[in-house]
Structures are given as C-alpha cells and as structure tokens.
C-alpha cells in the first residue's frame, strides 16, 4: 500500500466526526523544531500576565518605529518602500503560514492575491468599460470572498499531493490563471488588464495617498501577523503543525488531515486576498504581468529570504526585496543590476538556510553565549576578590 493510499484510508476512517472532536478536545502534539506554545489562554487576568511575560523592549521599539516611520520618511520611502513592503509581506505571510507551519509550499498565493485584485477591478471603478462601478466596500467584500473561495479550491485540488508535486500543481494553476487573464477579453480585458483602478476615498481621505495607505497596509499587516501568531497557538494551528510533522500519526489520533490542510489554505487565501487588494490599490492597476510567473516566484523568494520559522520573516524578506529592487540599480551598472539582486539572494540562502531570521537566531545565540561567559567570568573574579 503506497503512502498516499494509506493516508486516504486513514482519512476515510477518521471521517467527518473528527472535526468537532479535534476542535473541542485538542491533543496538542509538540512540534519538534518549532515548539508550540500550548493551548489558548482564558480569562483577562491570565492574558494580561501572559502579555507582560511576552512583550519585550524590542517589540515595543519595532512597533514604535513602524508607527513613526511615515512621519520621518519622505513620501517616496513611505509609499514605495514602506507600504509596498508591507503589502508584499502580507502575501508572503500567507505562504509562510502554509509552508512553514503546514508543510505545503504553494506557488499560487500570488494568484489568489491577483484574483482579489482582478475582482476588485471588475466590481469597482477603473478606466475600462468592463468594470461594474459598484461601491468600493461591496467590491472589496466580493473580492475577498471570491479570492478566499478560490484559494480554498486551489488547496482542495493540491492537498492530496506532497512536496514537489504540490509545487508543480500550484505552479500549473498559477500559470493557467496567467494565460486565462491574458487571453480572456470579455471579463479580464486580456493583455491590457485594468488601468487606473480607483482606490476608495473614505471620510475625505484619499486612501492611496502615501501616509493613509501606509497605515492601512500597516494595520492589515499587524492584523495578519498577530492573527497568524494566535492561530498557531490555537488548537487548529497546533494540529496543523502536528500534521506537518507526521500526518499519518495525526490521522491515527483522529484528526482529519485533509480538512485541516484545506482549512489552512482557506486562511492563507484570505490573508493573500487582503494583500492582493492592497496591491491593486498600491499599483492603481492590475494586468496579466501582476500574476505572471516572475511574481509567483518573487513571493517564494520573499518568504525564503526572510525565513519561515516565524511570521515576522516574510516582512523582513519583503523589506530586503523591495530595497534591492529599488536601489540595486544605483549601485552597479544599470544593465547588470539583476546580477546583484540574484547574488545577494544566493548569498543569503547559501549561508543561512533559514533566511535572515536564521542569522538573527544564530547571532542572538552567540551573543547569549558570550554574555553568559562574561557573567561567569565576572563571578569568578568577584569570588577571587
């Protein structure tokens, strides 16, 4: 009996009844490399204590820095560097969630984001007659729902595959969508796509202006970040990490492996859809190029670059990616700057398989070791005196 047949049999055996059981009585199996943080906490006092124990100075510093950034930086750095990094980071976060915690590398996350972008452009207002010119909130709602459903469907198609086959099937779906939008004129306006897509104006504030857009992107990025962090500690996330590490055993424990995986795709699809709406507002347009193969790969690069061991990884990766995209051209010959971008990616991946987060962890560990040695040394000295 092959592994996939075995798993199918196990899933069929576990049946639908496993769902409520799994949700009501979680049996959190500890992940080997990424220890889970136990079950969700209850009660405000406990959560306050929990907050106090977990918030460190560096968390507050980073939060203050990202909040104050647009007040200090010129509009270009706020919009093109800051806001774009956040929006791309949010899309890459959906991949980190799937790949880092679910063990499923999907190349179609940019496709889901692109579906959201296209749906917004179709329902809301753009320079093309195809657009239905419905109110923006309705367009956003529809775009999010449709993109999440598509993300779930993509998951449903690809969960029964593993490893390289998941990559292949999601790549195939992504490329198929690219050709669909490029050659369909009645709905997707083909090669041209949608130009001058209108972003909403809320309470007299043009959302696409650099500072409002930055805070909007920041809000959703924080929401995505904390949402994913919460989910990873919740029974669902713990079960997901268990499935990543040993799906057969989880099935034996009564978890519906397929359902958990599809649910993970649904969550990732929703996150990517929010990122997709932000990107279509950011660009003011959506065209087949926005969902082309290069962007499918770029999202993977961002996620790998930052590191998949923590939800902050994709945002760090996105910042490095966007900085390189914008400023590499100033450092070297204009016709060769892609060489520099590729070289830096190669160096990061070569020297740290865990991305930039791996460096951080390695550096912090060394620092702790050094300071421990220092304290021990001092104690010895005082002892002698």
């Amino acid at each position, binding site marked *: 009996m092959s592994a996939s047949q075995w798993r199918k049999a196990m899933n069929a055996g576990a049946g639908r009844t496993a769902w409520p059981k799994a949700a009501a009585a979680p049996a959190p199996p500890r992940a080997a490399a990424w220890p889970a943080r136990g079950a969700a906490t209850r009660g405000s006092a406990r959560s306050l204590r929990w907050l106090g124990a977990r918030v460190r100075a560096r968390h507050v510093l980073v939060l203050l820095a990202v909040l104050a950034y647009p007040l200090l930086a010129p*509009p270009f750095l706020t919009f093109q560097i800051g806001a774009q990094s956040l929006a791309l980071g949010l899309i890459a976060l959906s991949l980190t969630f799937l790949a880092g915690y679910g063990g499923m590398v999907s190349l179609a996350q940019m496709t889901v984001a692109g579906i959201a972008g296209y749906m917004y452009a179709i329902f809301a207002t753009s320079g093309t007659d195809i657009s239905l010119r419905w109110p923006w909130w309705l367009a956003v709602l529809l775009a999010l729902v449709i993109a999440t459903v598509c993300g779930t469907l993509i998951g449903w198609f690809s969960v029964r595959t593993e490893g390289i086959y998941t990559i292949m099937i999601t790549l195939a779906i992504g490329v198929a969508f690219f050709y669909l939008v490029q050659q369909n004129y009645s709905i997707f306006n083909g090669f041209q796509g949608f130009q001058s897509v209108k972003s909403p104006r809320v309470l007299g504030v043009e959302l696409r202006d650099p500072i409002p857009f930055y805070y909007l992107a920041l809000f959703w990025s924080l929401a995505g970040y904390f949402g994913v962090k919460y989910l990873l500690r919740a029974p669902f996330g713990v079960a997901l990490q268990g499935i990543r590490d040993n799906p057969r055993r989880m099935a034996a424990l009564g978890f519906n492996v397929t359902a958990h995986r599809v649910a993970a795709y649904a969550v990732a699809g929703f996150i990517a859809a929010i990122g997709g709406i932000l990107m279509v507002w950011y660009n003011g347009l959506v065209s087949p*190029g926005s969902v082309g193969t290069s962007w499918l790969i770029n999202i993977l690069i961002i996620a790998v670059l930052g590191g998949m061991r923590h939800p902050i990884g994709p945002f760090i990766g996105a910042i490095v990616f966007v900085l390189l995209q914008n400023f590499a051209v100033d450092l070297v010959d204009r016709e060769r700057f892609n060489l520099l971008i590729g070289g830096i990616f190669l160096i990061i991946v070569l020297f740290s398989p865990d991305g930039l987060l791996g460096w951080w962890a390695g550096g912090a560990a060394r620092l702790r070791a050094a300071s421990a040695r220092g304290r021990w040394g001092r104690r010895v000295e005082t002892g002698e005196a």
Partner: protein
Amino acid sequence: MTSLRQCMRMLAVAAVFAIVAGAADAQQVVKIGLLATLEGPFAAGGQDGMRGAELAVKERNGMVAGKKIEIIKASSDAKPDVAVNATRKLVEQDKVDIMVGPLSGSEGIAVKNYSKTQPGTTFINGSSGAQATTLQDPSPNFFRFNTEGAQWMVGLGEYALKTKNYKKMALIAEDYAFPYSQVQGFMTEYCKAGGRVTHKAWVPLGGKDYSSVIAKLPTDVDALLVVLGGADAVNFLTQYEQSGGNKPMVGGSITVDQTVLNFKGKRRESLLGTPSAGPIADSYDGAEWKKFVADYKANFKDGFPSPSLFAYVYYINMKAALDGLDAVKGDLSGGQAKYREALKNLKLQTPTGVVTLDENRQAIGTTFVTEVAAGADGVYYNKVVKVVPNVNQRLGMSKADFDKVGLGSRDVPNCP
C-alpha cells in the same frame, strides 16, 4: 557573511546618499530620467532605445543652454506596475526634472496616469505606442513625439487597393491592443476607398499552430493582411505554404522584418512586392536619415547593423526634450510652464521629417509605405515606395467622426 554585511552596509549608505543627493539643490544640472525595458521580452529593444536616447544627448555634447545634462536610467520588464514603480523612483526619489520613457504600450498608459499625480515634472514618451495614451483622458504633462500603431499604417490601405489592386482581403492578426490599432489604421483608409475585409482571424500572441486559422481562410480574397510579429509571421507563412495557400500578403509595421525577409521557403519569391508600412524604413534615402544611421553606427559598435525602431523613437523623444530645453534656455521655473509651452509649439526636426504636436500633445509625423524588393546581391529589403507626411492620430478624420468610430478593436472598424 562579511561580504553580505558589507553589501547591506553599502546598500544603506547608498540609500542615505540617494536621499541627500535628491535633496541637494542642483542649479546648473538638468536631470533627465530615462526608462526602458532592460529585462524581459523587450530587453534587446530597450537597450537599443537607450542607445538612441544617448545619441541625442551626445549630439549636444551633454550640454543644453549652458546646463549639464544628467541622465539617470531605470529599467522595467514591460509590465505596467514595474514601469510605474521605476518612474516613481526617478521622479520622487532621484528628483528628475524631465522623464523620458517607457517602451511598451500598456506601460505608457500606466505612466501617463501616474504623470497626473506629478504636475511638477514633464513626462515625454519613450517608444510606447498605445492609441489610448493620448486619445483617452490625456494628461496635461505627458508628451509624445512619436506616431503610434494606427498612424504607422496610413497610406498602406490606398496603396494596397489602388496600386496593388487588392479589392477583397482577409485578416490574420494577434489579439491585443497594438494589432487592433494597426488594423484600424489600415482599414479606415482601405474601407473608405472601397475595399472590403471579408474575414477576420484574431490569434493569440505567440501562437505556434495556425492550421485551424488557415483552414477557415476564404479562397475568394485577393490578398491577406497579416499583422503578426516577425517570428509568428514566419510560422504562419510556413504553415500557409504547406497547406497550399497562394495569396499574396500585406504586412503590418513589425511583420516584414529581417526574419521574414530571410524566409527560405519555396514561396520565397512570392514575398517580392509585399507591401507594409511604418515610421522608419532602412532604405530611405533622405540625407537626414542617412546621417542618423551613420552616427548610430559610429557611436555604437555593439549596436544593431541599422538602428531599430526603438532606437529611433527614443532618439526623437529625447531630442524633443533637449530641443525644448534649448528653446527656453534651460528655464524650468514656474512649474515648467514655459518649457511645456515650448514643447507644444516645437517643430521638431527628425531624420524622417518635421514632427509637430496636436492638442492632446501627440505627434503628427511621417509614415513610409514600403515594398519588398531584391537588392543587387539577391538580398531582400524593404524599398520605400511612398512617403506620407503629416499623419495625425485621428487618421485624417474630424474629432466628431473619429469619436463616433472609437478606438480600434476586434470589431472596429468593419467592412465585410
């Protein structure tokens, strides 16, 4: 790891440097941003576009009205979002005074839309040729000194009908905006003069198999209008020949290129006399054009044997930017108002004749009708048979008449 840290440090230093440089007041320097595609499908074309723009700067020895010209280059990959990001960096970060670019049609529309948010900068087109850029919702600070896809076909319709006597034609073209424009340019004139296009086949871009299209072609037409890129056109010709087709061909502006001229099939002879039209012609014998080609060859040893369309169009747009600066003695004050006025009234001397702008800041220029001929050594080339001056964007129609027809599409214009 050290090398990476150094890289990151360099990056940080460069970022700071760029901010400082952007803030520094540059009195005696005029900064011009130059955007072309150095990546993606049009990388070779983008590189040649840059050569053309550089040639225009070299002709003035890098100076205009006593001010030094600083060119800041950027690259895109023919995608509109990438083009806008690159343009935004040049305008907002590098603080260029004038922006020249981009290369392809959908990029052009996106950059034109962006230009509306930057009224302090003057935007001049690179080589993008979408009709909509200047016809629909034009931007007051976006100028285009090159003619576009529809204008490039003017003169060909009459030539095909009157000189070649093709009264009924069938059409094979790629299914996107540029061929729509080309077909509109051809058919507007052809239909008006009494010709008929009885069958239209729109094929996907980069298609390889034309057998189903060829099977449906009507046999009672006099010729085929083929608006495909060069490589696709060779594929089509080969398959058309294999299926026993024998109709003569009329080509679009990018159809009868070197790949088609070097076509080795049995019907190679039938290519002789194939008419097409475009904004440049290699064999044009105007003195200005010959000088331009000689300058290009002398300056760029690594360039093409003859300047490409991209080199030429970037050249004239950059030349317009510099001639305009010269006309106002480098005065960019008052939100560049004087400069823009000068650009609007410019009578631009180009290697193919004088170019002026219409009320949408779109070029009115020259189109060449050419025909495939055999040179003395048996090599095929495009011989100029007709020069059509002063072609405007509405193809000689009044605004009201043109608006009634609208932009070219699958079904517009129509004369079955």
